[in-house]
């Protein structure tokens, strides 16, 4: 049986995107394979590792477990959208400076989850950061540096806010 393609329209990193897609496609497939946004990674494909996390209307979702059509009409933010062009956001910069990145595979998910936390809670304590990142697996850095990076990004945000 061949399935009719459906139209898919969403704001992706601030840009209106219109496509014809197969209704069974996941958001991650649309992002990576149709739009070339390969920042989000597929780690486990079953929602366990967190590497594919993107924000849909501000809420973190696993790209691999979300049908693209669930995000139809929505506002999708991926790691590419954290800063314009080839720039990096303060959070991304903190990840680099604190050595929170090694192989980098978990980083897009870690960044999106941390970004969402900082939007909600500009000055989170260690427990809140650990709680937010508890659904994300990193096999290199051992988490300590990632937590440190989120803290330092929060500090930077706070001082920049005062200026």
């Amino acid at each position, binding site marked *: 049986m061949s399935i009719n393609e459906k139209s898919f329209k969403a704001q992706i990193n601030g840009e209106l995107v219109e496509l014809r897609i197969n209704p*069974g496609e996941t958001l991650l497939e649309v992002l990576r394979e149709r739009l070339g946004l390969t920042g989000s990674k597929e780690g486990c494909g079953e929602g366990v590792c967190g590497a594919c996390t993107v924000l849909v209307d501000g809420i973190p979702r696993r790209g691999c477990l979300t049908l693209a059509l669930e995000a139809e009409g929505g506002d999708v933010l991926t790691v590419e959208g954290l800063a314009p062009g080839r720039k990096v956001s303060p959070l991304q910069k903190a990840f680099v400076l604190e050595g929170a990145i090694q192989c980098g595979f978990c980083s897009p998910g870690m960044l999106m989850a941390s970004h969402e936390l900082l939007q909600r809670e500009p000055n989170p304590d260690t427990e809140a950061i650990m709680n937010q990142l508890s*659904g994300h697996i990193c096999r290199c850095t051992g988490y300590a540096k990632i937590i440190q990076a989120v803290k330092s990004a929060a500090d930077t945000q706070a001082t920049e806010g005062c200026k």
Partner: protein
Amino acid sequence: MGLKDCEYFAPSNLSEALDLKARMGADAVWLAGGTDLMPRARNRLVNPKAVISLKKLVQELSGIEEDGDAVIIGALTSLAEAGGHQTVCERLPGLTQALKSIGAPTLQQRVGTIGGNICADTRCLYYNQSAFWRSGVAPCFKLGGEVCHPGGATVDRCRSICQSDGAVMLAALGARVSLASDSGERELGLDEFFTGRGEEPFTMEPAELLNKVKIPAPKGQGSAYYKVAARKAIDYPLISAAAAVCLDADGVVTKASLALGGVYAAPLMLKDASQAMVGQKCGPKEVADVARKAGSHAQPFFIENQSAPAEWRAEMAPVVAKRALTEALAAAKGKI
């Protein structure tokens, strides 16, 4: 590909959704948060011809309200919202513990729903695997075959297990679910809703949708949920216990219930064991006796269908039972 050859519908209200499901029957599946459906679909354990997304029904089917001695939660209420709601925290502390223990903050907690958690399919070490992995073994009962891999030759039915934290706590609390269809609505206790059959875990017609759950929250009730899992986040329970205890003004137990999770295709209610608490004042000794009895009653249900050995899980049964009962009693004492 997430789903192969699958249509997608997103009806804009409940009656439209129910009409559509009545027409399509078992060919279509409901999609709420998708955290249970999508991994199964990706493993080709479920191959729907269509999904009916409930995303436009969130307003209609979510929210928490008090109705006298009960609390009613809409099926599409997210786990974070239900578990963190003030009414639930105060009147049903065990449910808060159970819902908060599910999954991860950036996944199940925000998009997962309480209805979806109740309807989460039963799981087994030999069933929840990729199509490639499964191609190496004969199809089991749950896949329409005639063997239960962990059960061995003596087992004649599916021995997959209910790993929903919410359902186990709700069963201990004596919750009832309401099932809506295009021809009306019916209410079922969770003891009837769960069939106990791994092949078909729920009493639910293809046309039906679980639209709300009603949870008794009488005065003097304390509840608690205790879960053992490999990690605090993401993981399903290796074993868990849910307890609900009611005390009268003198501290005498008037009602007690205990359910184990991660053991059986339904929340395993240990009525015989918990009944022994009723009519007396219970201290650590009585609780330990009940927990021991519960553990021995649950013994036959443990087989090698989980990532932790059956023998260890059986040993942990009285431990989790004792912890949940002790905490539920303490919570109840705080309320009289």
